[in-house]
């Protein structure tokens, strides 16, 4: 299964809008939403049935039994995450707790136990196509494993699919790093603002750090042609494939707000997205089987 991951660094550049368009154009049999923190792909995915949902367990959280606790303070003294508080009794802030287990190991009276904690929910639609996603419970950490679970869920449910499209998350941290694992190519959706340029550089460095081939496209390019040029030049200087640019189009907003993808209408953006898709596929095919997996 060849996997295309869509990232951006900066939020709001159009990952999900473009991912949904690609899924439509590719008639993809398998796709996933790895933005587990703020998933959106399901809003334009045209799903026909209720999905299967499964609790996702993250790292366990510490729990203090107030009846046994002798207020020795060893747990609070040693907690690096400021997760243990004392009012009348000692209790654990489950949002701050990172499940290391040190407090439980240190407690002289065994008043602390590590309890399994639901960190989110895995969601799977597998009626006609396979759509794997998840939702991280608010305030959770360790989103990386949930992201990996979303991808594994997709691969397990769509064994025969030869191509999968993955909508990623903004940033460069844990969930992005986890989404990079095992993909064949990353498409970076950049926007022509200085913030967008700076963020694009950081996500490209992150992809390079993990030795992941990347290509770049620009969305809303006509908002600032000067910055668009800057990005195109940057790609050339760094030997990065530039796969096209998409104009700003209010049609896109209207389409999304009515649950459609932008390639379902006409308009300049629709045509441009088709070009970007074609160019990206060419690169993906060109990468071929040089990866010996």
């Amino acid at each position, binding site marked *: 299964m060849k996997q295309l991951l869509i990232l951006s660094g900066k939020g709001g550049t159009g990952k999900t809008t473009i991912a949904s368009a690609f899924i439509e154009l590719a008639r993809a049999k398998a796709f996933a939403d790895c933005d587990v923190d703020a998933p959106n792909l399901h809003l334009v995915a045209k799903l026909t049935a209720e999905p299967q949902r499964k609790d996702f367990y993250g790292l366990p959280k510490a729990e203090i039994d107030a009846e046994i606790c002798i207020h020795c303070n060893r747990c609070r003294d040693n907690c690096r995450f400021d997760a243990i508080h004392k009012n009348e009794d000692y209790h654990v802030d489950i949002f701050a707790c990172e499940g290391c287990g*040190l407090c439980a190991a240190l407690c002289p009276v065994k008043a602390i136990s590590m309890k399994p904690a639901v960190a989110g929910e895995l969601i799977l639609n597998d009626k006609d196509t396979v759509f794997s996603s998840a939702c991280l419970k608010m305030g959770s950490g360790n989103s990386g494993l949930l992201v990996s679970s979303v991808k594994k869920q997709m691969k397990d449910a769509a064994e025969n699919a030869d191509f999968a499209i993955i909508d990623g998350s903004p940033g460069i941290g844990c969930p992005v790093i986890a989404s990079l694992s095992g993909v064949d190519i990353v498409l970076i959706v950049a926007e022509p603002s200085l913030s967008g340029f700076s963020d694009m550089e950081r996500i490209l460095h992150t992809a390079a750090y993990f030795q992941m081939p990347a290509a770049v496209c620009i969305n809303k390019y006509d*908002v600032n042609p000067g910055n668009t040029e800057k990005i195109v030049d940057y790609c050339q200087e760094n030997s990065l494939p530039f796969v096209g640019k998409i104009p700003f189009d209010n049609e896109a907003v209207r389409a999304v707000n009515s649950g459609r993808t932008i390639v379902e209408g006409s308009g300049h953006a629709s045509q441009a997205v088709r070009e970007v898709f074609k160019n990206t596929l060419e690169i993906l095919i060109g990468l071929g089987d040089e990866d010996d997996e």
Partner: protein
Amino acid sequence: MKIAVLSGKGGTGKTLVSVNLAAAAKDSMYVDCDVEEPNGHLFFKPEEVKSRQVAVEIPLVDGDKCTGCRVCVDFCNYNALAWIGGELKIFDEICHSCGGCIVLCPEKALKGKEKVVGQVQRGKSEGVTVFTGMLNPGVASGVPIIKELLKETGGKEQIFIDCPPGSACIVMETVAAADYCILVAEPTLFGVHNLSMVWELVKHMGKPCGVVLNKCLEEENPAEKFCAEKGIEIIGSIPFDSELGLLNSNALIAVRENAKYEKLFRDLLLRVTREVRP
């Protein structure tokens, strides 16, 4: 007063709002907690910048004292330690810096060493003190940098905190420090979905909040509808404006470029101040 600006969805205008509010307030502080992709500094171009590295503590083993008892290997919930070929191997990048192995080693063979994860920068732009946090690429979590940043904030009456997107623990960490939260919403289905997630978080943390509608078009605004349904106060509205978009894309501070925008953000600032101190 500490105002956190967040949105759930990326790209709605957190930085636009927090940077311009700080500039409109003139004598204020701007804190960029979006440590994975910090942008405020591109607008402020701060001067007299002082930088400090942020490090976490990871274990270092003294081979002479280590007896291979494997207490640390069995304890580590993150699997950052392995016993191979008669010695302890520590995986720096996996370690979550809980310090547990160091504390539990019966031979005291482990001690802490620093691993740099990012930096905190402090500078000035006219009357605004600008704090920026930056995470090094390849590092999983920005929480230690946010903690350092928030330790520094103080000394000014008006503090604006630019938050990361999403609603995970990194956002909670940032919101915990605030007196009031501005939720920036864009008029799309995606925007509303994420707005509701972040509103739940802010509610859960018991923080008062208000919504600023950004990029407003003429048609019906799903975010406005959402606020009406949930009874959330709308404290401001910024129309979709290609001139503002262009200024923003060139990292120019709208308030400092054009009197029209200065008025817009000064009005918003007054409204926010009234909400915090009625």
